[in-house]
């Protein structure tokens, strides 16, 4: 009990001491300082703000004169004048704050000795100053496909005298060499001070330039340079149900007819205007599943009188390559593109159809019919439901047991057929009857596939494995008499050349390839039509089954059918490869 008074005394002393040492500006301060004006101002970097003002009060809250107030910049790199000043009779002290060079928040403070509330902080917002300079920000020095947009936009950054980005500045863009275009003649700098434009390269290979201009700025005009090379550009991809997938595409008048097996015919606007589609943005129009599905190929027939009513559709049924086949020709009325409907068919017992060619002037459909050879149908006028009544003639070029025709094409008055087994044939067709005109049994080491003819030459593909792999495109001289083999273009690491076509101007040979590391799209120059020279390829790991050329709005596109497991229509721009 005798220790209790001592303990109480110590506690009392400690509490008193704590109170005395708690703060310089605590309850014992003799004066106070407070903000009078000048806080939260906004100005451009480097700009002098309205004075910052504080007031000092004595212990009785009366203005106190002759108290030294110290001013200092806390952040932003600006300046403040004066750095010390005595309060006037009203207890006021002021200073001039000039914003520093960094856009954003800046801060200054005022302090007075032994004053409650000291220091007093002033906040200001510094905005970028007037644009004074511009420089490149990105996109310079790219290499792209001639005639195609570059992968990255050009960008220029606009800055003030202190290198702060300046928003809202309009930049003028102009192509200065190469003949391409820019996505917009002007663009405006964003919050990061960046203005962008996309450069679509001109058609010619080589360096091409674009300038960015803002009058009066240091660095203006900027010159962006890129290099245009020739090549294949993937424009877009349209997925198709894996059912099995896409086999062929017929393109005409800006409409693409996708032959998508059991999903049927899918019609897309790729530049027709019907649905506002384009090659880069195909728009679905409609679809139809023909009898039996297995839609393999199509031909939209335009009659000499201008009718565009009929779409011929090939059905590829099961068969043993080289021996048996099945599948009919289906006739679809596409008068109403939004609602196509099957109205007829042609059946050939014991054989199935493959690729078509239509002599639209004379209104004859030539259909490759595998082991059935080649069939000619009269397609003039209004067609009946059963097209068997329109059969004109048929022929097995290699004879029974030696015929399996993949494709047929009319050229310079003759009909040419590529037979997988018996090779390349020239047929005559006169008075509704076929006759052998020459050729045949001329590709013994390989199985044949597709064909195309242009001028005095023909190009035929090869398929699978015979004594050699189907990795060749055969080049033939055609004219009077039988075709004469003049060259054979070999592509390593492919198993099949599945489709062949030449551009209408005869400048490019295009073929699709399957099964192997070089599967995809291949393009050759026909500067010497007898000896194609390699130009470019676009690899597709699962292979392309077909490649269809179409010119839309002056550009040359290839519509490729990508094989499963992710079947799709792939649209390529090959314009840059044209000489």
């Amino acid at each position, binding site marked *: 009990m005798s220790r209790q008074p001592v303990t109480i005394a110590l506690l009392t002393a400690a509490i008193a001491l704590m109170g005395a040492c708690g703060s310089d500006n605590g309850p014992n301060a003799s004066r106070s300082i407070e903000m009078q004006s000048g806080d939260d101002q906004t100005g451009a970097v480097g700009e002098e703000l309205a004075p910052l003002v504080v007031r000092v009060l004595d212990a009785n809250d009366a203005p106190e004169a002759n108290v030294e107030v110290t001013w200092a910049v806390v952040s932003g790199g600006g300046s403040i004048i004066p750095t010390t000043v005595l309060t006037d009779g009203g207890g006021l002290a002021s200073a001039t704050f000039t914003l520093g060079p960094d856009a954003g928040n800046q801060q200054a403070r005022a302090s007075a000795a032994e004053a409650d509330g000291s220091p007093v902080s002033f906040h200001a917002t510094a905005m970028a100053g007037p644009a004074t300079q511009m420089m490149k920000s990105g996109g310079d020095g790219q290499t792209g496909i001639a005639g195609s947009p570059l992968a990255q936009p050009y960008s220029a950054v606009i800055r003030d005298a202190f290198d702060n980005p300046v928003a809202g500045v309009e930049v003028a863009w102009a192509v200065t060499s190469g003949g391409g275009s820019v996505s917009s003649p002007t663009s405006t700098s964003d919050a990061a001070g960046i203005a962008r434009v996309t450069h679509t390269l001109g058609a010619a290979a080589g360096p091409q330039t674009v300038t960015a201009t803002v009058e009066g700025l240091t660095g203006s005009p900027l010159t962006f340079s890129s290099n245009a090379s020739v090549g294949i550009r993937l424009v877009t991809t349209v997925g198709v*149900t*894996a*059912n*099995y*997938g896409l*086999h062929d595409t017929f393109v005409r008048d800006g409409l693409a007819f996708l032959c998508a*097996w*059991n999903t049927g015919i899918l019609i897309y606007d790729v530049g027709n205007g019907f649905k506002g589609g384009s090659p880069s943005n195909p728009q679905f129009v409609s679809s139809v599943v023909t009898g039996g599905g*297995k839609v*393999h190929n199509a031909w939209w027939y335009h009659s000499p009188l201008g009718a565009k009513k009929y779409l011929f559709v090939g059905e*590829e*049924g*099961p*068969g*043993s*390559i*080289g*021996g*048996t*086949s*099945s599948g009919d020709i289906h006739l679809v009325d596409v008068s109403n593109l939004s609602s196509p409907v099957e109205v007829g068919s042609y059946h050939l017992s014991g054989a199935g159809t493959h690729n078509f060619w239509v002599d639209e002037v004379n209104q004859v459909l030539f259909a490759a019919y595998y*082991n059935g050879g080649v069939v000619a149908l009269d397609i003039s006028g209004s067609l009946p439901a059963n097209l068997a009544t329109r059969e004109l003639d048929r022929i097995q070029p290699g004879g029974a047991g030696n015929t*399996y025709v993949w494709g047929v094409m009319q050229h310079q008055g003759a009909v040419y057929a590529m037979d*997988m*087994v018996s090779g390349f044939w020239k047929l005559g067709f006169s008075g509704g009857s076929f006759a052998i005109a020459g050729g045949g049994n001329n590709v013994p080491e390989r*199985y044949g596939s597709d064909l195309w003819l242009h001028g005095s030459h023909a190009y035929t593909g090869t398929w*699978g*494995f*015979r*004594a050699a*792999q189907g990795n060749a495109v055969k080049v033939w001289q055609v004219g009077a008499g039988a075709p004469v083999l003049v060259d054979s273009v070999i592509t390593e*690491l*492919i*198993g099949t050349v599945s489709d062949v076509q030449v551009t209408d101007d005869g400048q490019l040979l295009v073929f699709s390839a399957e*099964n*192997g*590391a070089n599967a995809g799209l291949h393009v050759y120059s026909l500067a010497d039509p007898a000896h194609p020279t390699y130009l470019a390829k676009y690899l597709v790991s699962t292979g392309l*089954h077909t490649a269809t050329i179409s010119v839309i709005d002056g550009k040359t596109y290839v519509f490729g059918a990508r*094989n*499963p*497991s992710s079947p799709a229509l792939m649209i390529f721009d090959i314009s840059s490869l044209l000489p």
Partner: protein
Amino acid sequence: MAGQATVAGTWVSRVPHGGSLTEVRVVRPMLMGRGSLFGGRLRGVASLDGEGWTIPNGELTVGAWGEGFVDRRHPHTYFHELMVSGLERIGGPEGRVQVSLSAGKGFVAFGSDDPMNRVTFRYPVNHHWSQILERAVLIGGVAAGAVMVEGSLFNGDEPEEPGQWPNMDRFGDSWAARLTLMPVRGLEVAGSYAKVHSPEHREGAGLNDYKVHAMARWDGMAAGHPLYAMVEWARVEEGEGAFVYHTMLAEGAYEIGPTRLYYQLERTERPEEERVLDTKWRTIRPHLDNSTLGTTRWTINTVGAGREIHAEGWPIQVRPFVEASFARATKVGAGVFDPEVWYKGTDFWSVSAGVTLAFGPHALDHRMGRYGVAEQADHPHAGEMEGMHE
């Protein structure tokens, strides 16, 4: 629990594009579990298969094909079987009629037994004609005396890789029925029919298979020694008659003490499809169309011998074996595929030698792929003898 694995070397005298090939592989690494509850009225079976790890590129096997492999037998899926069956005897314990319902992933009640546990090491060419395996399947069975009827509903798609499960969106698009007669003990005569929708195209765009199968099987004694014999015939029609394939197989095994002698004769037709360029052992998948390159018929004689080594008190069974096959491939009907061109010859020799290690009950003679009343017919006391009890 039971398990097995075989280490074997196989030499084949002729492979694609000519030349011979020898390989040593671990095949059929299996772990099997069986169990039952409620006095055998609820049964489960699980078979795990590690071939996806040991033979991801298949097993060198003359004439084999299926699931995208050709001239090599494909690896099975990791979950080879995962089935549950409920059995009930109508009319009480003495009732003559027994019914079952089985569900899970496993074999469809169709055709003959899985070759994995039959007589030859070499898988027969007709594996995909005479069995329908690794499907999500629901099987109803009724057995009354010597007659058994089974009906199956399942997904038509076959596996494309070891880790793949059945496409459940397609469950029920295919069906099968099997009638089995057991007139005397040891003799079994069965007929099956199945419609399999698009087995080779997982999304369902492929051709349908219509399969007919008949078999007779004897498993008993002859001259005091175990004798097994089986003959089967099957016909498969694809694409509404576009393709028709046949198979006939006869096999037998005779055991004298620990030594087993066996023989198999097979004559099976198989489709020939376009092969992947850089392997020659695989066909292009997924399919792009419904065509084939033609048909070949494989006539194969296989003879072999094995010996059972099971030391007293040692939990592992050891069965070394050696077998030889002579095969001839011939072109059947139309099509561009010519075995003479592809293999640079049509006669094939194959020799395999190896050893199978196994543990657990019925590891080497379990008739894989039989559930419900079919399993009950094989092991009438299964619920009383094995696994967990109520």
